């Protein structure tokens, strides 16, 4: 029988396929020297990354979550935290860090490059899930159950926020949800209002473009060629093509009108080319991932597994939601990718890794006799 884990793998493969196709479609240029063939796409960078992500997912699905918990308990966690913080600081070093689109989010590792914030995003879940499961008896306390873990979360978020406010907010939101789900009282979250507001204010005021994004969100039409351009182009692209869509590859707006069409704004191109049906398909795929994930973690007995699974689902679900809300003009513009679809190696591999861990939890609850 098809288990939820199998379904999750199929759904991941489907989302990655959509990603490969749409990234290639959105990346088409006018008058390219070489025509793009199917072989180019199948042997191209995106297809290889998708295959790599699937491989990583498969490997992760072989990991025993119980063992992971035991390893964490045996002293792995401090190392994870240390590694995470070092990586986040390393992007600011001159040689290793790399600046893309005005933000130092990337890190060079020989021929490879990746975003430490992506690693931190997923590591944080493991750390918090372990902490909450390990300290289950004190999770209702203010100090040990909420303030202490939130200090770490705050530090990591602050480090990420210097370059990537969107991811920092995502990590913060997922962390708070995890702690509340693990036993922290809901009322404690009110304590966060002050620091979060202050942090946001600092982040917005320290970078003028963030203020512009807010103004553009409030009324993009006051400066349609300036700060409002991106939001307007995004909404125009989503609305373009009507219900039926212009057809795969036939987007008009990808030819220079919509910036970041292969990465953060790929959802708009999907809407323009594949129409309402394409949008429904992508949204349903994400919905199915959430439901499959939920059904897996409900069967896991150990709180660590459940918390880890919830963290993974929240990370993917919230990230997808924020991205699609940005693209449709529902929230201000943030640099946040659509999981498994927006072009991006680290994101694909790390997301697949997370989903692979979810699959790993989908084991028959009845143990086979030894």
């Amino acid at each position, binding site marked *: 029988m098809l288990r939820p884990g199998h379904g999750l793998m199929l759904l991941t493969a489907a989302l990655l396929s959509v990603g490969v196709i749409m990234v290639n479609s959105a990346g088409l240029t*006018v*008058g390219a020297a070489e025509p793009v063939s199917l072989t180019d796409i199948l042997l191209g960078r995106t297809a290889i990354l998708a295959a790599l992500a699937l491989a990583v997912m498969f490997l992760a699905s072989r990991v025993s979550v119980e063992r992971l918990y035991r390893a964490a308990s045996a002293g792995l966690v401090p190392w994870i935290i240390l590694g995470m913080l070092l990586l986040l600081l390393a992007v600011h070093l001159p040689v290793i860090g790399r600046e893309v689109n005005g933000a130092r989010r990337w890190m060079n590792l020989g021929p490879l490059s990746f975003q430490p914030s992506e690693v931190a995003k997923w590591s944080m879940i493991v750390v918090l899930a372990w902490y*909450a*499961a390990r300290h*289950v*008896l004190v*999770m209702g306390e203010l100090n040990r159950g909420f303030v202490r873990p939130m200090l770490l979360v705050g530090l990591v978020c602050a480090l990420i926020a210097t370059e990537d406010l969107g991811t920092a907010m995502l990590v913060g939101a997922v962390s708070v*949800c995890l702690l*509340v*789900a*693990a*036993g922290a009282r809901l009322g404690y979250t009110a304590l966060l209002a002050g620091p979060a507001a202050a942090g946001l204010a600092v982040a917005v005021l320290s970078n003028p473009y963030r203020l512009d994004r807010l103004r553009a969100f409030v009324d993009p*039409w006051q400066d*349609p060629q300036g700060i409002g351009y991106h939001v*307007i182009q995004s*909404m*125009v692209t*989503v*609305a*373009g*093509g*009507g*219900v039926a869509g212009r057809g795969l590859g036939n987007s*008009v707006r990808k*030819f*220079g*009108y919509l910036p970041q069409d292969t990465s953060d704004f790929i959802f708009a191109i999907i*809407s323009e080319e594949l*129409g*309402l049906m394409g*949008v*429904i398909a992508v*949204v349903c795929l*994400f*919905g199915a991932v*959430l*439901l499959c*994930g*939920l059904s897996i*973690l*409900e069967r*896991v*007995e*150990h*709180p660590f597994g*459940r*918390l880890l*699974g*919830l963290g993974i*689902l*929240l990370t993917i*679900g*919230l990230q*997808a*939601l924020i991205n*699609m*809300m940005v693209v*449709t*003009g*529902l929230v201000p513009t943030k640099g946040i990718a659509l999981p498994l679809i927006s072009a991006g190696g680290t994101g694909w591999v790390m997301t697949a890794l997370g989903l692979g861990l979810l699959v790993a939890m989908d084991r028959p609850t009845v143990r086979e006799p030894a």
Partner: protein
Amino acid sequence: MSRIILDETRRAQASRVSAWSRLLVLGMLAGLLLILVRVAQLKLRPDASLRAALTPPISTRAEPARRGDIVDARGRVLATSTLGYRLFIDPTQVQDIRTIAVDLAAAIGAAPDEIDRKILAGGAPRYVVIDDLLDDRQVAAVRTAGLRGVGLQPRQVRHYPQHERAARVVGMVGFEHTGLSGSEHAFDRMLAGRQGRLSYLRDVRHRTLWFEPDDYEPATDGREVRLTIDLVVQEIAERHLRRAVDEYEAGGGRVVVLDCISGAILALTDVLAEPAGPARLARNRCVTDPYEPGSTLKPFIWAVATELGRAHPAEIIPCPVDRPYRTPYGRSIRDSHYLGPVSWRNVLVQSLNTGMAIVAARMTHDEMRQAITRFGFGRRTRCGIPGETAGLVTPASRWSDYTQSSVSFGHEIAVTPVQMVRAFSAFARHGMLPTVHIVAGPGAGANVPRFRFVRQVCSASTADLVREILAEVMIEGTGRHAQSQRYRLFGKSGTAQLPRPDGGGYFEDRYVSSFIAGAPLHEPRVVVLCVIDDPDRSRGHWGGRVAGPVVRDVIDETLAYLAVIPDHPLPVD
């Protein structure tokens, strides 16, 4: 103990996590639903400002249609179009406005300060025409220079390879290649064709992306217009007319050569001694300006009177012996020479005004007026030349005895040269009035409002009789000076006083001298009319003298060109 507490707490935590998971997943599913609604709203019900921004980035380019050629009856090109280039600059796109004039001047070989002056003159801020038409070398130089903000705009250039030959008939085009005058104007729609259109999607840098099949409308080139004018005949007519106008120091002259079998106008010339402007823009007086025909109108009146039985050709008409004839209403009518009573036939041969007036008095006013109109006078021929007028025929309400007499010898009436040749052709066609036209070839009828106006205006026997008598005119009458050595002509001269432009009567000593003839007598091919306006009286003013030789020479050369076998040479006295 503590182990049990731990396990229970764990279970409680697990179920708390499970409950929260359900809640959070439900929340995220609701969020996904919200996104679906939002996308549907953007696609189906975009707000007003978004709807305005939704228009696809489409550019439209006009595809010019090539203007059709105008050719003569034998396909010789009278007007044709080629592609030329206009040089313009967009000062806002120019890299360095201070040096552009020098760079351009080097490319096209013009003075830099002249270019600078054009740029500074302003006008359209982004479209400054530097040169309206470049030659091939200049175009190549501009392209090689590759200067930013400098553009070559393709445009059609009209050429008239025959220069001034048939200039009035051909006319010319104006700005934007539209017909201004002559055939260019008359057949503009047919010549112009239909401009095509290409709408294409463009990317953000205005490069073409693609276009749908529906977005391309190919241009339909204009059609060729083949005129009935034959350049050779036109040249013959122009040459002889020019010579006569010079010789008689006339104000101007007109010659029409009509193929009386087909009704095709072979030549249409209009010469002015002192033209007021370019010939291409001038009106074509052969259809626009009526003149008083004088005695050339007599054959028509003669034919109708004879057919009505008001006089028999052999009947002796009591013309006066030595003094003017006095009409019953007291008007004195003179002849240039008095012969006494002569036959009705000889009245026409000798062109006697008195004889014509006597017989005219036997006709009713209606009969006389109808005699005029049935030959097509007073009505436009619709030959296809723009600006045609109907001539002047006194309306029935104001038709008097005086008019009756005047019209009988071609006064108090004005006709256009084309009306005259057409009416005269009836004698060459056994009484059948032809349709005259300026456009030949297949398809001409489709676009040209050609009035099918073929009808019998007098009986064949009467027409043939008139033709025979008009042949006598060439021997015994006023056509003696126009007799041809090669062909037997039938013709009639006319000499009318020039009306004063203010409408107050006639000049005493200024004339319109005309001559009309057809040939060969037995199988007529052409009818030629020559009108000489205001010849110098000291050199001559009688139609037979002034205009007759032009008609003869044009007929001789035209028939030779048309390979018509000459008649036996006739004795010339």
